């Protein structure tokens, strides 16, 4: 009896993954727990170990394909052993009472049950289901405006209307005969040339290429797509407002001068990021509303302070690992986690659950010299703090001009949750914490 290799559920909210590379070919032998396939999810890349020892009999999901968690990726068994029919096998996935044999690994989830209702789409009314079928509508593309975001009949009709208009535009274009395109001067060209060209055009029907300017289309990586989705979603969801304050980093600077060598001795690189995170914790404790999420039921104020920190990846893109319960860590503890997460983020070693559950995010855009920015909120959080470059600037202190290490703090908040006053109160607490850092 062959063993199946199943697309695992790699995290709480990770429901699909892309097969990026098979590390074995069909017919090759493999040991249990030996890396078999590389999977890329929207959050991380990971290797999946083999669920059994034997021969890789059949690969069902080719490289580059994205499938749902629970999908059978491959079969492992004895050479020559026949594998169950694919459809049958899939059906079996939906009947958990059937032979609970070779579940590949204990953490593998059961296949997604078909409940007849797509939990991402919400309640689908009879008329919506009928229209979708008749008009061949992919409901995941229709924005729901009904109760709890359900897709109403009107939403589908509006979508169809838009689709019709788009189609019309596309269809109408080629109706202009090429030789009548103004400015081409075709009307005044010898007929042979005109017809020769029109025949040529007919052979290859005009494709709707974008402007034929020289250039290159970069394929969209899974991460690029997810970043795009998240950014658009966030901007569409939350009314963003950014408020900026500056902080005198003198005391932090002094503290770090003293503490850095001690920390290094313990193997910890004490970065400014740790100080910012610590100051954010102070701010969030003072204004818990900044550590919240907007929901239809109400504003959910989170008890835990889980801080995300944006890390730019060497390969492009970015990832936001989360420091859970940041309020329970000391400065050194935060620094240690920052070191660890940043390093593993850059080398692609993060676990899926390490990029989830954040309640607030820090982004340090100052590394390349940016003074201040207007960061985009990491949904469903309500706030993100951007830190600019720390640079020495002349400032007025006690009516004298002094040179101080200064930083701009840009706080973008969801105006549904916070108002200017509460947002500024939060930011002021962050500034106060940084400027009044106790000396080591």
């Amino acid at each position, binding site marked *: 009896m062959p063993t199946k290799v199943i697309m695992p559920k790699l995290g709480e909210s990770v429901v699909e993954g892309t097969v990026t590379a098979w590390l074995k070919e069909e017919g090759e032998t493999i040991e249990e727990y030996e890396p078999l396939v590389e999977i890329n999810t929207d959050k991380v890349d990971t290797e999946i170990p083999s669920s059994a020892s034997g021969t890789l009999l059949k690969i069902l999901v080719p490289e580059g394909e994205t499938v749902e968690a629970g999908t059978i990726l491959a079969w492992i068994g004895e050479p020559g052993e026949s594998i169950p029919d694919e459809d049958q096998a899939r059906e079996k996935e939906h009947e958990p009472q059937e032979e609970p044999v070779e579940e590949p690994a204990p953490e593998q989830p059961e296949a997604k049950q078909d409940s007849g209702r797509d939990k991402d789409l919400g309640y689908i*009314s009879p*008329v919506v289901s009928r229209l979708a079928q008749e008009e061949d509508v992919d409901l995941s593309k229709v924005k729901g405006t009904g109760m709890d975001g359900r897709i*109403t009949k009107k939403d589908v009709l509006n979508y169809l209307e838009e689709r019709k208009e788009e189609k019309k535009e596309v269809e109408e274009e080629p109706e202009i005969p090429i030789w009548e395109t103004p400015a081409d001067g075709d009307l005044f060209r010898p007929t042979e040339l005109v017809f020769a060209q029109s025949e040529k055009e007919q052979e290859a029907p005009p494709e709707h290429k974008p402007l034929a300017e020289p250039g290159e289309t970069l394929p969209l990586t899974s991460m690029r797509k997810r970043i795009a989705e998240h950014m658009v979603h966030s901007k569409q969801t939350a009314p963003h407002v950014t408020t900026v304050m500056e902080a005198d980093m003198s005391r932090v600077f002094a503290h770090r001068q003293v503490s850095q060598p001690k920390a290094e001795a313990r193997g910890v690189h004490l970065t400014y990021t740790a100080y910012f995170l610590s100051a954010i914790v102070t701010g969030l404790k003072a204004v818990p509303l900044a550590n919240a999420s907007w929901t239809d039921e109400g504003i959910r104020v989170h008890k835990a302070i889980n801080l995300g920190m944006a890390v730019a990846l060497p390969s492009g893109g970015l990832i936001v690992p989360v420091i859970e319960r940041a309020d329970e860590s000391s400065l050194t503890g935060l620094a240690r986690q920052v070191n660890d997460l940043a390093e593993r983020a850059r080398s692609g070693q993060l676990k899926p659950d390490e990029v989830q559950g954040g309640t607030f995010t820090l982004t340090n855009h100052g590394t390349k010299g940016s003074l201040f920015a207007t960061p985009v909120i990491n949904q469903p959080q309500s706030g993100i703090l951007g830190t600019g470059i720390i640079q020495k600037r002349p400032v007025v202190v006690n009516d004298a001009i002094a040179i101080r290490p200064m930083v701009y703090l840009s706080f973008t908040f969801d105006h549904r949750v916070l108002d200017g006053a509460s947002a500024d109160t939060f930011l002021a607490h962050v500034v106060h914490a940084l400027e009044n850092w106790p000396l080591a």
Partner: protein
Amino acid sequence: MAEINLVEAIRQAMDEEMERDENVFVIGEDVGVRGGVFRATVGLFDKYGEERVIDSPLAELTIVGVGIGAALYGKRPICEIQFADFIYPAFNQIVSEAAKMVYRSDGAWFVPMVIRAPYGGGIGGGLYHSQSVEAFFAHVPGLKVVIPSNPYDAKGLLKSAVRDPNPVMFFEPKKGYRLIKGEVPEDEEYTIPIGPAKVTREGRDLSVFAYGMMHHYALQAAETVAEEGIDVEVVDLRTLYPVDRETILESVRKTSKALIVHEDNLTGGYGGEIAATIAEWGFMDLDAPVRRLAGPDVPAVPFSHPMQEWFMVNPDKIADAIRDLAAF
């Protein structure tokens, strides 16, 4: 065109039918000399005499029984039950005799009779002067059940009822007798066929199905919510049996949401029939569950004024139900 109230339209219909056909006569409590407790038969006694406008004893069984006998004899009786609440003594005559006559005689005998009865509460009438009884009779094949909501329809439908060869239950929303006014042609003869419902207000967002007083209120509620941007279609059922399924389903096809309103209490009320019709033949057009707004399941309309208000469906309650359904 003249603007008259509902009860005057009913009086005119009877007057015109009595003038047109000498077989038409009226029988009921205080319909003669007194002109009816709601003044529906005012002037008829003087015009047509005591043989065609008959004051009956206080016995509904007799009123209907006499009507059936006369109808079998070729007359066209209009029986008035003073309040629908009092119709139960005549229930056996109506359901077991009048409704079944054509069927059991294999078409040899007809009962071309109209039973008029004012129904409904909201007039301080208490337990015995406020009842809605339409659901009992809409359950009985062999009867036709008609409930007008305005003077024009009332006159046209009552004239059709008088001319119909079958027994017709004609329930009149008594609260609207003087409250509901409307234009009715003065010199022009017209009738309105029993059966067809009427779309009285066109809309896109949801359909409200109602009849009688509740239809009047539904129109008011539709106006209120129109200011909030909710575009309501209102359908006046007019005839409960046989009901106009096509108009109902057509409206649901258009709006995909249905609210049914009646004053009678909810359980076993007539709204269940409309809801079932939509569920059975209009399911794939629905964008929301079918909703019913009806009187509460208590034994009667209470006499105490605040309690009566609690019982009665009114324009505000209808508007709230519309808002809920529109938001779904």
